[in-house]
């Protein structure tokens, strides 16, 4: 059960993993051309469960995803950080009808590729299977999402596996810097801790058996979930089967009381050391407003990140190729459900050049704040985004992973389609406006990690 903690110093592809769209703006624009080249269909059951079907040719393979719109964002209570991820593990501990070993045996017989992951904003359970086994999988999945049942001993044992996952991550300097950066940038919002959670909270998880049942009751409800089916399937058949297996799932989602992050009014900086050898790492993060797929300036923030610091940027050519003072330079903007960050990261070869690299980053931002970017570079990026998306639709699972984050937020594909329509509509002036509005020193956090010696 993987937890793709935010890719560190290798920030994400636009429109891939980590994309969590915010609600469409209040003034809902007209429908846009779908970006997915398949006839998708969406239905909502009476209990609130959303079902999306993407039929595509796939040689009999199907991706069956259940997306719970709860992630580490929802861990607002003290001492509960990391619980959404921990609970993801518990979802494999079985029901009265299908105890975990029976569930596992059935999936093994199917040759299914089953796993799950947790992010800031969602928890996704995904199964790759042959189409002939689809109804059986629905039977299993609908059962565990309604009737999960586990003993306290199994709960405590699983906590050990979660701690193991934390242990394998903490040997990475990138993770150490990311953990500190988020904690510094967010003072109140749960984005301040990673998906894995604070180590003290992970250590205390075995004591939270009763809370885990409460967590399930609050969040694992049909009105907080989406079933996404992609592959060699017929939408009408899927809707019939979903109705049969999921109609009895009782609604009752309780929205978490997530605190609002106060406006940041002054730059925050920190230096930290790492017990081990590493190149110095620099992480600069700017606060963004919530993602709005219809807002050209907000969408342009991510295009800015690539134009300013991507591999065809002047900063990249200078720092990575010509002067060779930086090994990796990356930037991307958050698509999170709540206001997130625009991150710029650099792995610096010469410890004496950290300030110099920060200076180049500052100068690059100033350039974009002073004037719009070159129109041809923007047009090249817009073409790249379109082809990058289309080339990514190789398998049912790839399609599902590309759309899952938008689906989780909107309950349909409109956020995805709107985002790509807006990508195409962004002008150089929009990119300039994004830099001017968001890339302000008082909105940023700067972290530097160096080896201890």
């Amino acid at each position, binding site marked *: 059960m993987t937890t793709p903690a935010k890719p560190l110093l290798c920030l994400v592809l636009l429109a891939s993993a980590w994309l969590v769209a915010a609600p469409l703006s209040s003034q809902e624009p007209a429908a846009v051309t779908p970006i997915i080249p398949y006839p998708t269909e969406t239905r909502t059951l009476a209990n609130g469960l959303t079902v999306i079907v993407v039929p595509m040719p796939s040689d009999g393979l199907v991706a069956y995803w259940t997306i719970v719109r709860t992630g580490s964002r929802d861990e607002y209570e003290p001492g509960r950080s990391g619980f959404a991820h921990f609970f993801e593990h518990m979802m494999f501990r079985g029901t009265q009808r299908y105890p975990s070993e029976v569930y596992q045996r059935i999936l093994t017989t199917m*040759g299914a590729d089953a796993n799950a992951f947790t992010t800031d904003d969602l928890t996704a359970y995904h199964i790759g299977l042959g189409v002939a086994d689809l109804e059986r999988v629905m039977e299993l999945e609908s059962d565990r999402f309604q009737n999960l049942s586990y003993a306290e001993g199994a709960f405590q*044992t699983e906590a050990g596996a979660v701690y193991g996952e934390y242990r394998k991550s903490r040997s990475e300097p990138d993770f150490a810097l990311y953990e500190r950066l988020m904690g510094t940038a967010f003072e109140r919002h749960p984005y301040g801790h990673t998906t894995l959670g604070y180590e003290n909270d992970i250590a205390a998880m*075995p004591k939270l058996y009763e809370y885990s049942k409460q967590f399930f009751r609050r969040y694992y409800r049909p009105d907080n979930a989406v079933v996404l089916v992609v592959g060699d399937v017929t939408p009408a058949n899927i809707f019939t089967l979903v109705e049969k297996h999921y109609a009895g799932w009782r609604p009752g989602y309780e929205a978490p009381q997530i605190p609002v992050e106060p406006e940041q009014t002054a730059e925050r900086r920190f230096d930290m050391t790492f017990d081990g050898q590493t190149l110095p790492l620099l992480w600069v993060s700017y606060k963004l407003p919530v993602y709005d797929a219809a807002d050209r300036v907000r969408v342009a923030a991510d295009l800015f990140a690539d134009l300013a610091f991507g591999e*065809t940027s002047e900063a990249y050519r200078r720092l990575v190729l010509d002067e060779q003072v930086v090994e990796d330079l990356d930037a991307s903007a958050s698509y999170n459900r709540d206001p997130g960050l625009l991150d710029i990261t650099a792995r610096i070869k010469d410890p004496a050049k950290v300030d110099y690299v920060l200076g180049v980053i500052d100068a690059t931002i100033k350039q974009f704040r002073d004037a719009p970017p070159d129109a041809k570079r923007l047009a090249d*990026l817009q073409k790249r985004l*379109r*082809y990058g998306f289309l080339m990514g639709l190789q398998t049912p699972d790839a399609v599902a992973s590309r759309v899952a984050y938008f689906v989780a937020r909107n309950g349909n594909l409109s956020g995805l389609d709107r985002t790509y329509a807006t990508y195409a509509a962004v002008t150089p002036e929009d990119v300039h406006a994004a830099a001017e509005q968001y890339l302000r020193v008082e909105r940023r956090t700067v972290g530097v990690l160096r080896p201890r010696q």
Partner: protein
Amino acid sequence: MKPRSRIALAALAAIVAGCSRDSPPPAAPAAEDSTVVLMNVAADPTISLSVQFAVGSQNDPPGKEGLAFLTGQMLSDAATESRSLDEILAALYPLAASYGIRVDVERSTFTGRVHRDNLDAYLELFRDALLHPKFAEDDFERVRNDAVNALENTLRYSSDEELGKAALRELVFRGTPYAHPTDGTVAGLKAITLAEVREFYRQHYTRATMQLGLGGGFDTALVARVEAALAALPEGSAAAAPTITPAAIEGRSALLIDKPGADSSISFGFPVAVHRGERDFYALWVANSWLGEHRNSASHLFNVIRETRGLNYGDYSYIEAFPEGGQRNMPPVNVPRRTQLFEVWIRTLPNNQAPFALRAALRELKLLVDNGMTAEQFELTRTFLKKYSLHYAETTAARLGYAVDDGFYRLDGEGHLARFRRTMDELSVEEVNAAIKRYWQYDDLKIAIVTGDAAAMKTLLASDGPTPIEYSNPMPEAIVAEDREIAAFPLALAAERIEVVPVDEAFER
């Protein structure tokens, strides 16, 4: 948004041990014939290209470990005679396309993929990169610096699990050209000159060593077009692969990587002389899948160590090279090797639980070797594999990769994946258990552990005393009883057979 593929630190090593049972692997991996491997998928709007050369890290001269890797990087991540690297990046950028190279022990495979709308522009860049590298000094310094850093910082200090696996392979294949990481060693990389890279390219990137593959929605005219483009490569001649005599493994020995502050990451194993295409290979795959299918909760080791006892995140086993196991769920392509390693991977866990987990895995191996699989386990596992193997190659590019690798294993006619599925229907539990007896044992093996307290670990392991663990929750009596057996399972590791290496010296030369 990376238009280029960066090949992460790959694992190392293979040894020559030509003792296959049914059809011998190539005694020397000479060039395949010039037949193009075609994987036409009309519905796929993209086109995948693969150009594989019979050269890899086994061809690194002594003291120049990393030469094959740097040569590959100078094709995939550097300027050509007519384009600077930033011009190449700018040209690839609107295409959302990339090319890259995987330099493995036996083969170097240059691959790319593009939407067919953009084929013409892309082909020119792909061809230019492969045929006309500039070998500029500034590119060379950059890619070498990156490679050294990948060893000094990333491998040693950013991923204890990959470090443990690399250490095992170094220990098993020590003294052979297969022992060092495919990326090289720190001293080897620093000793390489640009002139040596240029000469290595001239010698090994030739038509005589090349295997071309095309996949996706291409039309037939593309085949001749690509072949004509690559005809500009020199004819060359196939180099003989190094002959290696592996050191016999007698008893158990261990290498502890001393990394202060670290938890424990464990790998152990030994070479297995069985290959794709041989019936025993598929029989052994069934046994291995039951014991430790990668990243799958059907794995028995996963169930014993993680699911039942909650000691770590996962526990798996392998009979083929599986580089970057922490980052991928399905097997990689283009890592064909003449000799493979049977390997058990125990993911990171606290130092005080490491001896118990090691004992648990060794004990499970012993039980499997001594008792074999039951008929029920066998039936369940082969049923699983018949369907699960579809996930090994879901994309056109992956299927093309398998088909190209079929050439290495001399699998004419019926490729590995088709053979795999057919053989699942034909095997019997008796065949599987015979293969286990033939290729696996538990007395003669090597163990690598990255640990935060190597001195104490060495003392503990050498003492062979009981290493019980405690749980925060009560365990069923059956588990408690089994734990007593595990905690006292013989390690048979004498102190003089346990070597300790400071992490800063790992892969230095």
